[in-house]
């Protein structure tokens, strides 16, 4: 019996990489099968379940009414939150600081990509605004958590249905009409695409847990609709050549178009 997969994973992988393929049958530039299911959770205002191969992330959006911040009195607030528990993997290695970093990255992504119109979430300037809490739970983790997180966050926000709220100036109270709902307009959808570099030259798209463990570094590109980029992350590891970065960006744009089509065509049905 061949135990080299556990004892010498890199050697095992090299045998496959020489022939331009991977142990799970994918080509080097192939993503795993991705499914998107919006509107699963009826107790949430918006929700989405994303499966990228075996990595499963569910995002639920709860809406509450509160006071806008001092810095942005005319804007609503969106707070992403990620929870990783041993439920998703028995070999979970992420520390809570890394998870907090991911939350901050997602929060920055929503602001920098300008995909959400925060002003539409404001009800009364300086007094009332919508606060959307986006809670993401990883149900199963087999590599490439970030792509799944971004996709689930964006598709959950795409799926959100908020009731119409009107401020009655005479009674100084908010009037909520739960039957008439409106959705957020998301003109530009950011899509994340992660790559792993092995042996400083080989580029693997959508790495799973084994591939992340043998990789030298992980690159993430976040692409927007019109050929623009709104995020590029490469944290340490082996250096990358400009040619490699170029290939990453091209692949990310192609992938972005596929995922955007999937999000836009999914039936945005919230069971309410």
């Amino acid at each position, binding site marked *: 019996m061949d135990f080299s997969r556990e004892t010498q994973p890199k050697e095992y992988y090299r045998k496959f990489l020489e022939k331009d393929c991977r142990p799970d049958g994918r080509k080097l530039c192939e993503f795993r099968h991705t499914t998107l299911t919006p509107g*699963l*959770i*009826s*107790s*949430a205002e918006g*929700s989405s379940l994303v499966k990228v191969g*075996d990595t*499963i992330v*569910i995002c*639920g*959006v*709860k*809406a*509450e*009414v*509160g*006071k*806008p*911040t001092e810095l942005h009195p005319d804007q609503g*607030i969106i*707070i992403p*939150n990620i*929870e990783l*528990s*041993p*439920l*998703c*993997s*028995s*070999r979970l290695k992420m520390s809570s600081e890394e998870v907090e970093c991911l939350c901050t990255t997602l929060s920055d992504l929503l602001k920098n990509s300008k995909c959400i119109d925060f002003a539409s979430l404001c009800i009364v300037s300086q007094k009332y605004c919508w*606060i959307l*809490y986006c*809670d993401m*739970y990883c*149900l*199963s*983790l*087999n590599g490439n958590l970030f792509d799944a997180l971004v996709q689930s966050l964006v598709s959950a926000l795409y799926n959100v249905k908020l*009731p119409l*709220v009107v401020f009655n100036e005479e009674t100084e*109270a*908010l*009037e*909520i*009409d*739960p*039957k008439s709902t409106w959705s957020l307009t998301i003109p530009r959808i950011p899509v994340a695409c992660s790559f792993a570099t092995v042996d400083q030259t080989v580029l693997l798209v959508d790495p799973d*847990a084994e591939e992340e463990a043998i990789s030298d570094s992980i690159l993430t590109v976040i692409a927007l609709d019109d050929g623009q980029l709104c995020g590029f992350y490469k944290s340490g590891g082996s250096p990358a050549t400009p040619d490699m970065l170029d290939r990453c960006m091209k692949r990310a744009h192609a992938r972005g178009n596929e995922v955007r089509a999937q999000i836009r065509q999914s039936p945005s049905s919230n069971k*309410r």
Partner: protein
Amino acid sequence: MCENLSIPFLLQQYSKNGKPISSTSGKKTVVRDDRQCRTLYLKCGMVTQTEGSAYAEMGTTKVVGSVIGPRELQRRDDFRPKGTLKCQVKFAKFSHQNRLTVEDLERDYSNQVASAVEPAIVLSKYPKTLIEIHLLVLENDGSTLAACILCASLALADAGIELYDMLTAVSVRAIGDRLIVDPAGEEATRVEEAGTALITVAYMARLHQTTLIDLKGDTSVKVVLDASKLAVDLCHQIDPLVQQALLDIEQLDE
């Protein structure tokens, strides 16, 4: 984190016609018989990176669980001749109508599920090991404890841990003398009224043994006995579904 105090909009003000908005406004109410359970869906093997996992859906209540173990216990001082079981139940923040932290409920459910499941596991075969069960409630719409127990039992079977028997669980709500099976939504939550109770029973169908009876509320002895008997009958009805979920794992492996 946001420092502002935000209020769930449903608890906020009133609607235009001056009536407070209830959490079920706008939802379709399904008419069900008192003795009829909601649709049950069970599946094993969702999570590939843990030893065992399961997904249970009782109507709209959804629970995901996975089992990690058996793992060697790190503590070298106390040798335990029987395996140790740890259970953790977490509620997703979007699982309720109002986004609340429910740490007390989580702790309560964790203890309940652990005590319901422990008698079913052959712990004597796992000395000095730790078996962990992690459950996540995705949507809480009544019968959540029952769904958690079903999920835990299936996840253990999926992990290949030896069990004396599979567990089934059912919740019954008693309003005076009236018994409602598998309460949903508002029916499940209003236990504060006098003379009402929520009874959850965990039962091993082949061994005819009850591992847990949980009563919340106040009611008479006769009602508790009737409710338990009704719950046991329903557990027998649910058992074939649990068996089928196990058979499906076998087919997947082939």
